[in-house]
């Protein structure tokens, strides 16, 4: 009834090719932004920021980054944890070396450093693909973690090998360090996520994204119609690593405040983010959000319900929680192999016809 193209006339090419062709979607988009920027900051407290929103926002950035590589360009990567570590350590080195520069710039620069490293480790993708590429990126994961453990320069020769984020401000508000308020933490990550999501959405709709998808769908055919595999694959690795680097920098500097490479950026992180992308939906920006929400919020929710409301012992709850999350992943993938994003797509199709399905 209200969710339809009919009656929504476009009078210019610009309007015709906008991100949300349906009016209801546009309203919804602005409503979500208004809610995220206007309402949530009023009610947020330390617990909501640190246990729910900030990890959700940061994992969303990482999932969008990986989705570009795996979902749009079809290059399987298991190096996400390693690339996040590059972002985190680049951010740390920049923060300590140039304390007067804004942390906002440092986070973007950390993304840039990660992009360079990502391109370097993306080079094998020109020769190998599929599982073989996955193994090559796995090597990146292990190599990077080893490197940050081995070379003391990266952690400024601290006794424990830990990196700790010093206090830094953006326009007068602390966003890293202990004095940071929940609101500034949340808003900083939200701004980053908005930039990343808008950028990713528009990249994937344009020439660059179409080239990625062409390579994903059939690389030989793409090459024949004039898509350069070198630049296409390299841009995919570059953009993906840039986003993942930003996520890594925020993860360390804003969320955790201190990190240890093996623990925070180990192979589990690579898998976690890959699962987010798969469960959310390959090749979908919304899917990245949905996957991140599923894997970040569900465990917190289950923990609160099982331990908090039902009063179960913590160890039992922790085990049951793993089983429930694992079970739900299996159920979702059987019910909808294309991820949560496909459910959303189906809902939209149904909404178009509602309330007269025939």
């Amino acid at each position, binding site marked *: 009834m209200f969710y339809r193209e009919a009656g929504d006339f476009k009078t210019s090419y610009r309007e015709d090719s906008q991100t949300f062709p349906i009016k209801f979607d546009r309203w919804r988009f602005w409503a979500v932004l208004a809610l995220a920027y206007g309402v949530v900051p009023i009610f947020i*407290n*330390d*617990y909501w920021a*640190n*246990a*729910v929103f900030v*990890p959700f926002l940061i994992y969303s950035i990482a999932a969008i980054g990986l989705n570009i590589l795996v979902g749009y360009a079809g290059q399987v990567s298991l190096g996400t944890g390693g690339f996040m570590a590059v972002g985190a350590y680049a951010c740390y080195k920049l923060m*300590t070396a140039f304390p007067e520069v804004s942390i906002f710039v440092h986070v973007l620069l950390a993304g840039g450093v990660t992009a360079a490293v990502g391109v370097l480790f993306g080079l094998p993708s020109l020769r190998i693909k599929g599982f073989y590429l996955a193994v090559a990126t796995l090597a990146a994961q292990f190599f990077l973690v080893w490197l940050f*453990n081995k070379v003391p320069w990266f952690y400024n020769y*601290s*006794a*424990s*090998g*830990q990196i*700790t984020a*010093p*206090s830094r401000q953006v326009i007068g508000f602390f966003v890293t*360090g*202990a*004095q940071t308020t929940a609101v500034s933490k949340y808003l900083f990550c939200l701004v980053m996520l908005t930039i990343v999501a808008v950028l990713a959405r528009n990249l994937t709709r344009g020439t660059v994204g179409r080239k990625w998808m062409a390579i994903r769908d059939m690389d030989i055919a793409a090459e024949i119609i004039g898509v350069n595999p070198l630049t296409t694959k390299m841009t995919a690795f570059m953009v993906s690593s840039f986003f993942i680097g930003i996520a890594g920098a925020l993860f360390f500097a804003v*969320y*955790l*405040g*201190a*990190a*240890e490479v*093996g*623990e*925070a950026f*180990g192979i589990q992180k690579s898998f976690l983010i890959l699962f987010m992308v798969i469960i959310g939906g390959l090749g979908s920006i919304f899917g990245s*959000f*949905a996957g991140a*929400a*599923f894997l970040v*919020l*569900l465990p*917190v*929710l289950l*923990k*609160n*319900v099982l*331990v*908090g*409301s039902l009063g179960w*012992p*913590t*160890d039992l*709850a*922790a*085990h049951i929680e793993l089983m429930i999350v694992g079970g739900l992943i299996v159920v979702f993938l059987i019910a909808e192999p294309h991820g*949560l994003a496909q459910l*959303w797509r189906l809902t939209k199709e149904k909404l178009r016809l509602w309330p007269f399905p025939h």
Partner: protein
Amino acid sequence: MKMKFTALVAAGMVAAAPAMADLVIPNLSYRTGPYAAGGTPYADGFNDYFTLLNERDGGIGGEKVQVPECETAYNTEKGVECYEATKGNGALVYNPLSTGITYQLIPKVSADHISLYTPGYGRTSAANGKVFEWVFNYPANYWDGASVAITYLLEQNGGSLEGKKIALVYHNSAYGKEPIRTLTDLAKKHGFELTEIPVDHPGQEQKSQWLQIRREKPDYVLMWGWGVMNQVAVQEAANIKFPMENFIGIWWSGSENDVVPAGDGANGYKSLAMHGTGMDYPVYTDMKKYVLDAGKASGAGDQVGSVLYSRGMYAAMVIAEAARKAQEIAGTPAINATQMRDGFENLEITEARMVELGLPNFGQPFAATCADHGGPGAAMVQQWDATTKKWTLVTGFIAPDMEVLDPLVAEDSAAYAKEAGITERCN
């Protein structure tokens, strides 16, 4: 999707918030994952001691103690979540039993003004109370442990380690890396050669590390291990027939769970101990009466009297004594986190007090001051007897070499103070 989850989380949260009252001492524990073997007995001991106080004395100074438990799985992200989830309920002190989580919490507790108590683990330089106002790690820390182990080896070798080779097998994390700086300095002082052998998390695979040890034939092996890594290391050492009496673990590598799986092979393995072990203390009479036999034991109740259970109980005992001191200073039983800190800073545990508590000759006496949050740092050496399945203490308390440690603590805490912009207190 997101909205729906948020709504559900909200529902869960509202139901989760416990009533505000009593003395709240959260127990950030881990009973799952590769470190559960260490985390479970510790959490049980910690809980049981407070249950004992509640049941026998009606709490501390008439105030009941609440110990909300939160599972961290030794994971820093979950640790942060647990901290945020529990701090709003008037938490007085945190004891996360994880060096990684401790590093994370140090800036947070300093901003939120809640004490952090990390006996025998955490950031060593937090012993310097001039810089770390809210962190306490008495009675001993990692650098003390490293120095005690070397002092013990010096005694064994007639006062000289010249030309000896000592290998350090360590968990490749903040925890395992802590003693390296001290051992390097001690190596310079005593002329031994130090080989560093890292083992990555979780440490189930150590073949190459022990192959290296077999090849290089060090005279002694020290170990900074935790969780499943300990059991594997002891087993591997037995496999390569390394003389077990020359293999010394830190106090976190010296529980029953670490040596039992290796069977007879583990016989003679040594570890440091910062307190006594076993059920031969008078406190267990009450513990049996009020907690165990009453069916109020934490967890499965099968860990009572083990090394790590004793350590959890010890930590709980120190916290309870600090709370008592805080009540005394504040003049009210309902203390807040700031008053709790004063209790920690003015805490003095004497042997007489330990006897009163039913723990004679259990731990070392110590007294904290504004500048000293680290205690004397002495430790004993215990040895495993595989036939009787018992740890036997082979030395008394050995004091660490403060001549080496003091400058290191001063240097590291000064570096932190500079990074975090802290000016020294207590002057």
